[in-house]
């Protein structure tokens, strides 16, 4: 049996192998996660609700099934967390907001149901920026999650709890959502892997929407392989999600060990190298990664794309319009129930004209065409996830708009798969990262390129030092 204090270091595949070999039980794995959360999450606030009873029941069921030879796939018996915008039947789902503080859904979101059907063990619900947009904020029912590498720094958002929980070793995988970078930003700041799949590949049904045409559901995990194994469980066509793509489910782990020999990688260096606030450490780490892929046999060439600011403006106008449509009535009737920052961001959609939105949609088509043009010649595009290490909480003035130093919005606009992977650490010991963008529905190539870099850099074994002794403040179910 593995020592319970080191169980968090087991990958999903490693834990799964031990579960199937009978050298580890899901109950032991789950108890180790719950103990770690209880001991350490008080300093991080990554969970808003710990579902210990449900987790132990899920684990006991998994142990019995595996003992009986029933194998439900790679997440069977594996603990995970859900961002608190994913509906969970009978379990409070708050969107981290006063407006939904008593909301208990009757049905699971599709992703929650697929993880449950796949034998996963739900540890609880994770902190988010309010309605996946307003944060970091201190005027909400729950405190904001903190960065495990340094509590004075933000973990990114809006999947803030998901990034923090995975980086802290509370679970190997947590689900996030990404409308302008809310999976890849926290992954970048917390030093984990975050995959925003192709638009429509993973069902959004039962996940509280922020922006219908920009929302994506995807995993944050310790490693590329953990992400790939999760995708195998959560991917399926959903006829009740209007955006759901009716495409065959890829074999996500195929190619993880193939390397990158012969792969063609494009680098739009102008996106990030000349951007305001771009950290020399981020740029150097991307350059090193590009050299690494080249040494491994890939062709790496510099290309140009339309200006980043155009992608960003296009996405933010669409996001503002769609989010406002969702929140219009509450913004008109109970504005003070939103946190100051959420309110300041959400009302913007009320000031847009119909022409503003249609002009953004016309630009969106042009930007999609431009990226597709590049990806006809290359297998992937590499660019920055974030322009800097995680900012400090003190960098933000509560209630005022946040200029996130992330460059993730372009691929919400275009819908292409994009994954943030760690590239190293800053001189202050905070994670650095880049993102890999692939052709629509070519997640296996994105994962393959990420896995090659991950192996070459060997960063997955480094863990943050956490402060014990601050008991978890998360509620228990």
């Amino acid at each position, binding site marked *: 049996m593995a020592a319970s204090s080191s169980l968090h270091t087991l990958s999903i595949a490693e834990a799964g192998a031990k579960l199937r070999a009978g050298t580890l039980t899901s109950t032991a794995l789950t108890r180790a996660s719950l103990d770690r959360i209880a001991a350490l999450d008080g300093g991080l606030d990554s969970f808003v609700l710990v579902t210990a009873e449900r987790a132990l029941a899920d684990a006991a069921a998994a142990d019995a099934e595996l003992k009986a030879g029933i194998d439900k796939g790679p997440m069977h018996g594996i603990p995970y967390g859900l961002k608190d915008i994913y509906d969970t039947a009978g379990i409070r789902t708050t969107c981290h907001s006063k407006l939904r503080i008593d909301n208990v859904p009757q049905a699971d979101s599709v992703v929650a149901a697929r993880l449950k059907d796949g034998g996963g063990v739900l540890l609880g619900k994770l902190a988010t920026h309010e309605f996946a947009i307003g944060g970091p904020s201190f005027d909400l029912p729950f405190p904001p999650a903190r960065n495990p590498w340094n509590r004075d720094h933000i973990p990114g958002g809006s999947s803030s709890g998901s990034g923090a929980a995975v980086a802290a070793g509370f679970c190997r995988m947590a689900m996030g959502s990404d409308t302008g970078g809310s999976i890849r930003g926290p992954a970048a700041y917390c030093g984990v892997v975050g995959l925003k799949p192709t638009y429509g590949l993973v069902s959004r049904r039962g996940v509280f929407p922020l922006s219908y*045409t920009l929302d994506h559901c995807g995993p944050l995990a310790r490693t590329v392989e953990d992400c790939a194994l999760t995708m195998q469980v959560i991917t399926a066509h959903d006829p009740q999600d209007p955006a759901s793509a009716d495409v065959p489910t890829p074999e996500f782990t195929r190619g993880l060990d193939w390397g990158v020999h012969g792969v063609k990688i494009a680098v739009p260096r102008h996106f990030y190298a000349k951007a305001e606030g771009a950290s020399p450490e981020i740029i150097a780490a991307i350059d090193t990664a590009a050299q690494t892929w080249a040494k491994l046999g890939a062709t790496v060439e510099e290309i140009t794309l339309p200006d980043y*600011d*155009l992608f*960003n*403006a*296009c996405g*933010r*106008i669409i996001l*503002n319009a769609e989010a406002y449509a969702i929140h219009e009535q509450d*913004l*008109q009737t109970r*504005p*003070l129930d939103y946190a*100051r*920052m959420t*309110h*300041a*961001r959400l*009302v*913007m959609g*009320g*000031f*847009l004209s119909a022409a*503003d939105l*249609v*002009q*953004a*949609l*016309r*630009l*969106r*088509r*042009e930007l*999609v065409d431009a990226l597709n043009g590049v990806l006809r010649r290359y297998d992937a595009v590499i660019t920055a996830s974030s322009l800097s290490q995680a900012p400090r909480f003190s960098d933000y003035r509560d*209630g*005022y*708009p946040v200029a996130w130093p992330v460059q993730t919005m372009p691929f919400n606009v275009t819908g292409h798969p994009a994954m943030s992977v760690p590239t190293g650490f800053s001189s202050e010991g905070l994670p650095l990262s880049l993102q890999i963008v692939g052709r629509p529905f070519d997640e296996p190539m994105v994962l393959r390129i990420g896995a090659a870099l991950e192996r070459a850099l060997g960063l997955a074994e480094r863990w943050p030092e956490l402060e014990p002794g601050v008991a978890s403040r998360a509620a228990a179910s």
Partner: protein
Amino acid sequence: MPTPPSDDDLKQELDAAAKKAGLTIPPERHDAILVSYKDLRRMTALIRQQPRNAAVEPSNIYSLVPRR
């Protein structure tokens, strides 16, 4: 090149836009919202900088498929 509007002009513009949208902006939140509003105006101008002819269609144009 047109003169950029003053902060007072923008405040009046924001208040009028909020009234039209049926939104009440609490006084203590007004300054922060004005900052976002300035950024929104910058973005709506930016997406119009590139000339487009009438044939450039939006991304949400769809094609119908006969029921099989």
